């Protein structure tokens, strides 16, 4: 259905990555690998560098120093990765139009787009709302639509930046169920969240960041049961990290 050659993107390797804007360091010598498997969840306080890691992993930013490679390649050309931003922008067209647009951008043949869009909207539970203007959907519905649009890229890797921020519990559950479904299909999910409960529920492994540095990267059970650093322990206890 997708016409592009399916390039492999995993594993993504961050090697001593430094990212700065002017004199401000955002990421400081981060080395990290995202491999196939259960979801990886990035946690840490505001300003920890979670969003920057996701954007670098997507190829939307280039490191100031160090390197990011996708399955050994350092190009950022056609790929099988997708990202959902914290506040996704809905294109000015219907829900189905948004998904069809993403399919077209991904190289899906015109004749296949309508059926594939219907399939994706059904997957995210928006089948009854296909014709509705995307900007008229609720916050939770827009997040679902953004997920459908991301899946239109037939991704091997799905990056999610705070996918449930500002959503009510029912909408959060809906998005979490979808993430589980997506992960069960073999798509590697890497997501950032502030919600520790969500991290426990969804993660296979946890990346804990603070002030642009990678503090811990561990299996989810190990991280929550026995954090290796004082900062991680404080963060888990809900204490403020400054």
């Amino acid at each position, binding site marked *: 259905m997708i016409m592009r050659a399916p390039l492999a993107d995993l594993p993504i390797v961050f090697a001593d990555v430094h990212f700065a804007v002017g004199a401000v360091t955002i990421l400081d010598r981060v080395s990290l690998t995202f491999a196939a498997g259960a979801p990886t969840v990035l946690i840490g306080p505001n300003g920890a560098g979670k969003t920057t890691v996701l954007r670098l992993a*997507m190829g*939307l930013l280039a490191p100031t120093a160090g390197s990011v490679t996708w399955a050994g390649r350092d190009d950022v050309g056609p790929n099988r990765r997708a990202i959902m*931003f914290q506040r996704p922008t*809905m294109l*000015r067209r219907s829900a189905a139009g948004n998904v069809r*647009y993403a399919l077209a*951008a*991904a190289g899906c043949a015109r004749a296949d787009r309508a059926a594939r869009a219907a399939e994706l909207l059904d997957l995210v539970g928006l089948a009854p709302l296909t014709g509705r203007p*995307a900007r008229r959907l609720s916050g939770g519905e827009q997040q679902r639509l953004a997920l459908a649009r991301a899946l239109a890229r037939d991704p091997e890797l799905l990056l999610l930046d705070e996918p449930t921020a500002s959503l009510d519990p029912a909408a959060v559950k809906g998005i979490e169920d979808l993430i589980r479904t997506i992960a069960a299909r073999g798509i590697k999910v890497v997501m950032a969240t502030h919600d520790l409960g969500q991290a426990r529920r969804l993660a296979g492994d946890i990346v804990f960041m603070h002030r642009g540095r990678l503090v811990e990267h561990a299996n989810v059970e190990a991280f929550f049961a026995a954090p290796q650093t004082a900062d991680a322990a404080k963060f888990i206890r809900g204490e403020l990290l400054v």
Partner: protein
Amino acid sequence: MTETSALTLVLSADPTLMAIVRLSLLVSLTAVACSAVIGVPLGALLALTRFPGRQAAIVVVNAMMGLPPVVVGLAIFLLLSRSGPLGALGLLFTPLAMIIAQTVLITPIIAALARQSIEDLWLEYRDELAAMNVGPLRRIATLIRDARFSLVTALLAGFGRAAAEVGAVMIVGGNIDGFTRTMTTAIALETSKGDLPLAMGLGLVLITIVIIVNALAWGLRRADERLAG
């Protein structure tokens, strides 16, 4: 009495009045079409590209929205007059000269409004389109497509300015009866002659056109909200 005569002229579709209205619409609509062809790509270029002097170019285009029509008329007159650089073309005092003058007047309006609309949308869409690996051509097409209602509103604003303009077309058209006389120049002339019924009749038509244009702009805005959200 004068009002009744004016209304009678309009309702009876007086041939003189209708000829003036037809020429006015032809000149203004053609000018809008020319300005759209120049102004929308220029606006998109200013919105989407970065080059040295871009800020200055935006300031100049914005400032040109307030070009005084008589100054534009004078500049086009000097350009097209027999001793001017384009005098050999013999365009002065023709409808084409009026179209050129109106195009010069309204292109900055359309370009400035198009730039603003496209740039606002680009700031919204930039991350998503980059994440979808959308190439430059598809990106421009998407922005123009999704800003289409705002762009049509810009064209209507340009048309409103063109249709209501008098100074420039008077200078380069010469207000020649049956050839270059538009609604606005005819109103000015007939008022000075004391032929108020024709002047008022044309005024009625002009105001009606301006109201229709604004109603269209408003309707488009509503349609945009309903269809695109």
